[in-house]
């Protein structure tokens, strides 16, 4: 019995963390944040070389046939460095869409490309997790019209996978005629979120129309687990940076970390945060091994981690005092990643309501 990472997963974690920590100094984060596209090509390339894009893809398509647990390990490392890469869309959500509902040809074609790092996907699931304003897609034959909001990593993607309603998945070339995409100006500048406008754009169905409800549901589960892992990684970094800063920063002839108020803030942060790790691990494990528990665990992992993550981000910012409010230490990149993740694929209230529904608690 081992609740946690296997030896291989430990090595994977070390490799990904090591690579990302080396590649994402604060200056480079600032640089791509200013660029606003939320993508850093060298980092993406490095992750591809480490095999990160293929972890949940079967070997026959060039992947390493590991599981969601391994993807979660990678997502957490991405959260720790707020690395601007389209990982969750390309390496988690797109493969699940293709494996769950794609034709043999689609799988053959795209999964191999994903494993090899030859394509970037953007994924838009807001049709299935909460429609805002005038968003909404309409499919007539293979022509797609309407508006998709908050397409994750959609700004620089080559291909977009979009949910139409809650039971149909389509893939559309990002350069298709009739498709326009616009940058959404989210405060987290390390992720390229897109609005996609479609006017009779050609698209390909992933599975027959109306047949993809279960696949979409799995994408949402995996997305929630992945985002929770990312936020956990970001929150853990914030917590330890706050602790370290508190030990260095002197006021009133002593490190502020020697004041009980700061010590207790740190104690509260770790007490609330640490259990999230196990919750996320178990949710990912359930996704791989215990499908009947996966959706509930995904909801709780996301809702709980996002509530705690927000608290940790606030407390860590407070402990940094004025330094937390400036860009000088870059703390806010981590905070903003947590804030964005909180809202993606269902905020805490919506996710808890989903958890209640799964248990038959909603009349």
């Amino acid at each position, binding site marked *: *019995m*081992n*609740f*946690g*990472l*296997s030896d291989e997963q430990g090595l994977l974690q070390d490799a990904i963390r090591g690579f990302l920590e080396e590649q994402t100094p604060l200056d480079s984060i600032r640089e791509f944040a200013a660029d606003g596209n939320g993508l850093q090509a060298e980092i993406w390339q490095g992750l591809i070389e480490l095999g990160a894009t293929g972890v949940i893809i079967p070997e026959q398509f060039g992947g390493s046939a590991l599981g969601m*647990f391994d993807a979660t390990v990678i997502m957490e490392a991405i959260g720790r460095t707020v690395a601007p890469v389209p990982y969750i869309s390309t390496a988690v959500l797109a493969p699940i869409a293709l494996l769950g509902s794609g034709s043999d040809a689609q799988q053959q074609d795209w999964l191999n490309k994903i494993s090899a790092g030859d394509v970037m996907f953007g994924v838009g699931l807001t049709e299935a997790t909460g429609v805002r304003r005038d968003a909404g897609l309409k499919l007539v034959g293979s022509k797609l019209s309407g508006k998709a909001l908050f397409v994750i990593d959609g700004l620089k993607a080559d291909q977009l996978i979009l949910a139409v309603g809650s039971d149909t998945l389509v893939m559309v070339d990002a350069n298709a005629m009739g498709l326009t995409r616009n940058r959404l100006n989210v405060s987290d500048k390390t992720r390229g979120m897109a609005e996609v406008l479609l006017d009779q754009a050609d698209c390909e169905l992933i599975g027959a129309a109306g047949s993809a409800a279960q696949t979409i549901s799995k994408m949402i589960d995996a997305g929630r687990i992945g985002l929770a892992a990312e936020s956990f990684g970001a929150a853990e970094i914030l917590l330890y940076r706050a*602790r370290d800063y*508190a*030990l260095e920063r002197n006021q009133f002839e002593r*490190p502020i*970390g*020697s004041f*009980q108020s*700061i*010590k*207790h803030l*740190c*104690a*509260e942060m*770790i*007490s*609330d945060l*640490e*259990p*999230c*790790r*196990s*919750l996320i*691990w*178990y949710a*990912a*494990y359930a996704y*791989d*091994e215990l499908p009947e528990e996966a959706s509930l*665990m995904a909801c*709780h992992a996301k*809702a*709980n981690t996002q*509530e705690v993550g927000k608290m940790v981000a606030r407390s860590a910012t407070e402990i940094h005092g004025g330094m937390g409010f400036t860009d000088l230490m870059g703390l806010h990149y981590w905070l903003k990643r947590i804030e964005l993740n909180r809202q993606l694929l269902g905020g805490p*209230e919506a996710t*808890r*309501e989903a*958890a*209640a529904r799964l248990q038959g*608690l*909603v*009349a």
Partner: protein
Amino acid sequence: MDLKFSEEHEGFRKQVQAFLKEHKATAPTMKAVNGTSAAPTPEVKRWQKILIENGYTARTIPKEYGGYGGEADLIKGLIIQEEFIAADVSTGLTGQGISMLVPTLLELGTEEQKQKWVGPTIRGEVVWCQGYSEPGAGSDLASLKTKAVVEGDQFVINGQKIWTSSAHFSDMCFILVRTEPDAPKHHGISYLLMPMTTPGIEVRPLVTITGDAMFNEMFLTDVKIGVDQIVDQRGKGWMVANATLKHERGMIGNPAQTEANLNALMKLMKAETCDGIRAVDMPVYRDRLMRLQGRLLGLKLHSLRLLSDDLNGKAPDHGGLIVKYSSAYLNHEVYSLGIDVMGELGTLYNGDAYQSELDWQKMYLGSFAGIIGGGTAQIQKNVISERGLGMPREPRVTLDNKGWAMM
């Protein structure tokens, strides 16, 4: 991630299940044993004997001291817990003698002390209470003032203890006393074994917030016990007590209990109505329930992670330090929601006809013990930040009540 147990362990589980099937009809329930404040009945002692013989309690205590003599196996312990809880069959006697004194004696007692006390204690023949806290020594236990002076071959003890649960039916008390008044405070304490029948001991029940008297005050006036009734050396009592406290800390904050409470809460929310609407159908209560469930799952899986790390020989990190603190508040909030969904009925307790199946009000009031007892939340947060996060210890300053330094 591998949550499967080995074949050996799954075989052990079957064995436990078979045992439970055989004995279920005649075995006492969990509540019958742990829910009482009285000395063990003959039935309970009979059951305890069966449990020891089968290695379901006192499992790792050597045979020569009356135990089962099994090897330490956390998973077997876990399986026993799980299966007995599922069957609602008592896992045997708990109490401070068994959970705290016995491990301490096994670690630090003399051969004679082990021979004399371990067996009778685990069999429920000798019941112990703990004489640690004093009115002026709570969080700062080491400032205790109850003193023992040697006169001839006896310690003569004078002072006052508090929070001595089960003192009114205990046979013995393991007590901390100050024997070296001139030593620094942590070095002047001794750990003694005191028969409760010794003249000069007065036990008074201590009524608590719940209305019950689960605890006592104990007044000691010229209480005389032999100088050999000491564990380890004079002045080493703090170290001995810490070996014991280590065992206590782990006891408080049990996710399995919290999970049972949360399940009961869910059931309650499906039953209780206001103006004909079930509590679970009120979205604000439902959201609170889901928040609590999320936190509970986190703590439960966290505990599993800690168990796994322990099993796999990983060095303990900060993880273990947070369980008591987090569980205490979580329990408190679970009970609080239970009261809120019952509205006015939630304020009823102690057998009122409108109470629900569980006494939510009493559990709520009792939950303050979890927040305060065994190290208050403030002390826990000190420990978490200092030992868990490596932050500085509180500076040692002596202050008066205006905050001025005293020399």
